[in-house]
């Protein structure tokens, strides 16, 4: 009995591996990309629709996307000015850097579950590349978030930040960050079709993750052995990277860059694989 089970597992793994290679091959071919590219106006229309419907227009959307980081920043500034005064130089800059990037992550991931289910009306009635739905969902949040980033950059020198050449590497890391978030969205939206209580789990996980990530405290404050575990978290890596760029004006170290790059590749790969494998069958369960 256990041997049969092992054999089954093994066969499954081999199957999956073959599929994974095939998938990677397919997604790499220009043909697949060309097909997606042909639908670029669909992505545009979906993004505009969402901004219009969900946020009643761009102006209000931008305002809402600003509200969240501003409120959080303000609260923690109060706490760390009056209750636990921080000794860190330019503490507000440190705080805002972490919170601005955390906001993008938490907003997309908080909504990620419902991406497929919310669009079931479309998915069940017409064929189009399904991958574009999570693309549009991430883009909506990204576009609105860019306003927050803009405001952040305006206040950046006022908070004591220095515009140095290091900032030029920022877009690359931001791109990686967005890719990572997108990959995670693929995974969570696919799983949510099967597991409808995933949403509550994610809400809790986001809470834990916020505190387990060095956003409102420096990673150096954490005991060494915990630090070593903490640094394995992709979100901690990213937060540290952004703090190094904006707060310390240092190029992120190669180690942490490699670690995060690996995370992104794994998550996007897993996301694409899961999505392409599960979604065609999930359609009938939406």
């Amino acid at each position, binding site marked *: 009995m256990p041997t049969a089970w092992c054999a089954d597992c093994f066969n499954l793994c081999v199957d999956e591996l073959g599929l994974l290679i095939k998938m990677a091959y397919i997604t790499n071919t220009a043909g697949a990309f060309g097909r997606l590219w042909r639908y670029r106006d669909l992505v545009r*229309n979906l993004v505009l629709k969402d901004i*219009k419907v969900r946020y009643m227009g761009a102006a209000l959307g931008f305002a809402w996307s600003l509200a969240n980081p501003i409120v959080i920043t303000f609260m923690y500034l109060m706490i760390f000015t009056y209750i636990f005064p921080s000794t860190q130089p330019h503490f507000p800059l440190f705080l805002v850097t972490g919170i601005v990037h955390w906001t993008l992550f938490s907003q997309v991931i908080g909504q990620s579950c419902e991406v497929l289910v919310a669009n079931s*009306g479309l998915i069940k009635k*017409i*064929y189009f590349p399904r991958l574009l739905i999570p693309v549009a969902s991430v883009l909506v949040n990204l576009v609105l978030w860019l306003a927050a980033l803009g405001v952040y950059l305006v206040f950046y020198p006022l908070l004591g930040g220095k515009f140095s050449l290091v900032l030029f590497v920022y877009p690359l890391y931001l791109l990686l960050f967005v890719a990572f978030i997108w990959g995670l969205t693929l995974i969570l939206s696919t799983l949510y079709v099967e597991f409808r209580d995933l949403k509550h789990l994610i809400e809790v996980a986001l809470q834990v993750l916020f505190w387990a990530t060095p956003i409102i405290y420096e990673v150096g404050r954490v005991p060494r052995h915990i630090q070593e575990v903490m640094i394995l978290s992709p979100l901690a890596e990213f937060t540290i990277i952004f703090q190094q760029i904006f707060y310390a004006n240092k190029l992120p170290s190669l180690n942490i860059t490699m670690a995060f790059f690996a995370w992104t590749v794994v998550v996007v790969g897993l996301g694409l694989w899961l999505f392409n494998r599960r979604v065609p*069958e999930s359609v009938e369960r939406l």
Partner: protein
Amino acid sequence: MANDAAQSDDVIVVDHVSKSFTLHHNRVSSLKGRFIGLFKQRWRQHVEHFHALTDVSLRVRRGEALALMGANGSGKSTLLQIVAGILRPTSGRLWTQGRIAPLIELGVGFNPELTGEENIYLNGSLYGYRNAEIRRLVAAIVEFSELGHFIDTPVKNYSSGMYMRLGFSVAVHLNPEVLLADEILAVGDVAFQQKCHDKIAELQRNGMTLLFVSHSMDTVKRFCHRYVRLDHGKIVESGVFERDQQADQIDGSVSSSTQQNANAAASSDRPGNAVT
């Protein structure tokens, strides 16, 4: 396999397609439930495979019109969804060619908060059109739908008839090479229905292929050359409509003899025009 078998003028080849749905009795769609199910029998879901389609084969040539008939639940919509690429067959092969416009439902993807015009763009892009291409068609779509100045108001203010009219207008103006129509022509008032029928006939003259689901023998005979009848997911009957009726009907002149024929056929088919 289907690929090799397909001749150059085949547009749709359905090759021994079966589709079974998994019915989850006592469906457990939570992580918690799955976990408890490991220990407690009562929490486990019982899975049953329901065969919606069994070994269905058919081919449709370019410019041809095939009617799918059969009672409710016989698998017509499922077959259309498979041809449209929305569902995957459990076994068998499907091969299609050309731009397919599935009209499984009118006004798919219409968002109630958007205006009629914005929805035209959204709907068109779902069918794979660029906004620039749609822009050239908007005027014609609006005119056909007879929505007038309502086109600038949110779709949530439309009556259901207006909604359908807009959905139909978008789909037929995108010049699909293959139209999959699922019981969609029984909507709107008589005048608009006539207009829809004329439009479909016009598209057919221009070479459009049609896969058509309807309960009304009358309508089916008007557009289709052939029919296939499904029963419990199997093809139980197929046949050809006589040529002369076909020609008459497409011209729009309904002769009384064909009308009678059609009625007789319709009533033998099923009492009344049930809608799924």
